[in-house]
């Protein structure tokens, strides 16, 4: 096991991981009679790349939805920055500095790329109604300041050329990138990525990996990621949670998880005799 004292740990490549940012305690989530998540606990530390893996239907996306406040677990609690999080609407969770991308791209199709990314800045913009209506002083200034921040994200993800294109016209790979840009524009403390590489070709995957690592490296953003591509997961992440049928069957560094018998059984199947 890793030595996870409260002051963090060192990764293999020599990055310093901080204390506990968020902790899931005994989360159970049910839809009617179906148990999607069964008594799962794990923690997320500042600055780490934390992966959640598991076969289809294991409950990974539901877990992410619990973190972002979209589903409310029947049992268990979420602790954020050391405090128990009360039942919150998703937008309140977002305002606490948690941004995410979606498995099936959830961009605003009727808006341009620029406007989509600007929506990421909504929680940083608070000019009053009348000032906006009159486009007066603070409202206009705020718009420009945030536009400048958004342009930095656009540069970072190399999507300058599609800035004013309506999102609906973009190919899949670029849409995924725009979605990441929208999440990054929020300057989140924790970034949740739901299968960021699904459906991409090798080249696009490599680009996306580079972006994820760069985000973690340059902004120190904590990243929680769901991914099916084992190669990607093992390369990127510092620690991995493995889920199967709503239960946690493994938790640890990629190497530990790789050698965990239960994980091997879940992925490769097990002989019944």
């Amino acid at each position, binding site marked *: 096991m890793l030595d996870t004292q409260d002051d963090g740990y060192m990764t293999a490549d020599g990055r310093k991981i901080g204390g506990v940012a968020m902790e899931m305690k005994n989360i159970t989530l049910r*839809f009617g009679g179906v148990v999607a998540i069964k008594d799962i606990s794990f923690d997320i530390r500042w600055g780490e790349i934390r992966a959640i893996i598991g076969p289809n239907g294991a409950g990974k996306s539901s877990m992410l*939805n619990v973190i972002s406040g*979209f589903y409310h677990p029947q049992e268990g609690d979420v602790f954020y920055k050391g405090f128990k999080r009360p039942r919150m609407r998703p937008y309140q969770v977002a305002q606490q500095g948690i941004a995410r991308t*979606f*498995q099936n791209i*959830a961009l605003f199709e009727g808006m341009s790329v620029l406007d989509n990314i600007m929506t990421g800045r909504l929680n940083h913009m608070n000019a009053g109604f009348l000032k906006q209506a009159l486009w007066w002083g603070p409202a206009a200034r705020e718009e420009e300041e945030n536009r400048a921040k958004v342009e930095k994200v656009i540069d970072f993800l190399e999507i300058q050329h599609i800035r004013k294109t309506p999102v609906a016209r973009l190919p899949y790979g670029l849409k995924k990138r725009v979605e990441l840009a929208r999440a990054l524009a929020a300057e989140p403390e924790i970034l949740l990525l739901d299968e960021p590489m699904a459906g991409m070709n090798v080249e696009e995957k490599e680009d996306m990996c580079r972006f994820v690592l760069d985000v973690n490296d340059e902004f120190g953003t904590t990243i929680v990621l769901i991914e099916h591509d084992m190669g990607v997961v093992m390369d990127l992440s510092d620690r991995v949670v493995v889920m199967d049928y709503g239960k946690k069957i493994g938790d640890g560094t990629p190497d530990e998880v790789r050698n965990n018998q239960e994980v091997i059984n879940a992925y490769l199947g097990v002989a019944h005799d």
Partner: protein
Amino acid sequence: MPDTLLFAMEAALNGLTAGIMYALVALGFVLIFKASGIFNFSQGVMALFAALTLVGFQNGQIPFAHLINAVLGTRIHYFGWNMPTLLAIPATVAVMILFAWLVERIVLKHLVNQEPIILFMATIGLAYFLEGLGDLMWGAEVKRLDVGIPQGMSGAVDDLTFGWFGYGFYLDTLDLYALGIAAVLVTVLVLFSQFTKEGRALRAVADDHQAALSVGISLRFIWVLTWSIAGIVALVAGIMWGAKSGVQFSLSLIALKALPVLILGGFTSIPGAIVGGLIIGVGEKLFDFFMQPFIGGATENWFAYMLALAFLLFRPQGLFGEKIIERV
């Protein structure tokens, strides 16, 4: 028994018959919604159009007579013969099927995969078009519709209730027939959807478009089929209402009340449409009966919508609908 209660019961009974009317229109909505996910606003106008066409055929009116006269300066109005009802009804059914086919051809085909709200607005457009077309084809004046159903006070009901309560309820014989016809119609529809090949295909499409397509069901055929059935249901509704209060534009406003009915009953449930229709029909009559002294009459104008609104706030999926779990 106190008089007020008796009067209230009579009002409720009359509400029941209005409710059947709402239920019939709502039934047409449900059929189309189930098969294509389209909320067909024009269902009420379809009833009006069907009734207009039926009267037109019966009286031997020349379609577009006013238009032809205006353009050519002629003075034609009637062919000069009357079509017997038994012939006029199948002819009207044929027109409604033609209409269904045209709607699929010209409108639906091009709107596949659009958002529901766009489809809804398209059916509002369709409703306007059909209303204008109906007026243009057959003229806009109020018409009498007679298909041979006896009308007037039902003596049997009067005698029966007089025997029970010492007060005879007024009930139109026509309403009794409407009840019977509605029951037959629903039975036929249920039998059709359970025991025929087309019915099974219909249910498959209602369940999952993609899956139905992949096993070789023609979506377009199913759409024409459902719109045809909805057209026939509209014709029945049109006959009932037309025989009662004449064929006129207000029919399509009455049909608007099918919307709250659907909210009560759920958009995909045939029993829901019937029960919802009856609840609204009885509810508005009773509400008006008891509230008239306090807030004034004509509350039927809005009661159904307000009831639906209140209902929506507590049970958005309707009486028989299932709760939807949202996903991202």
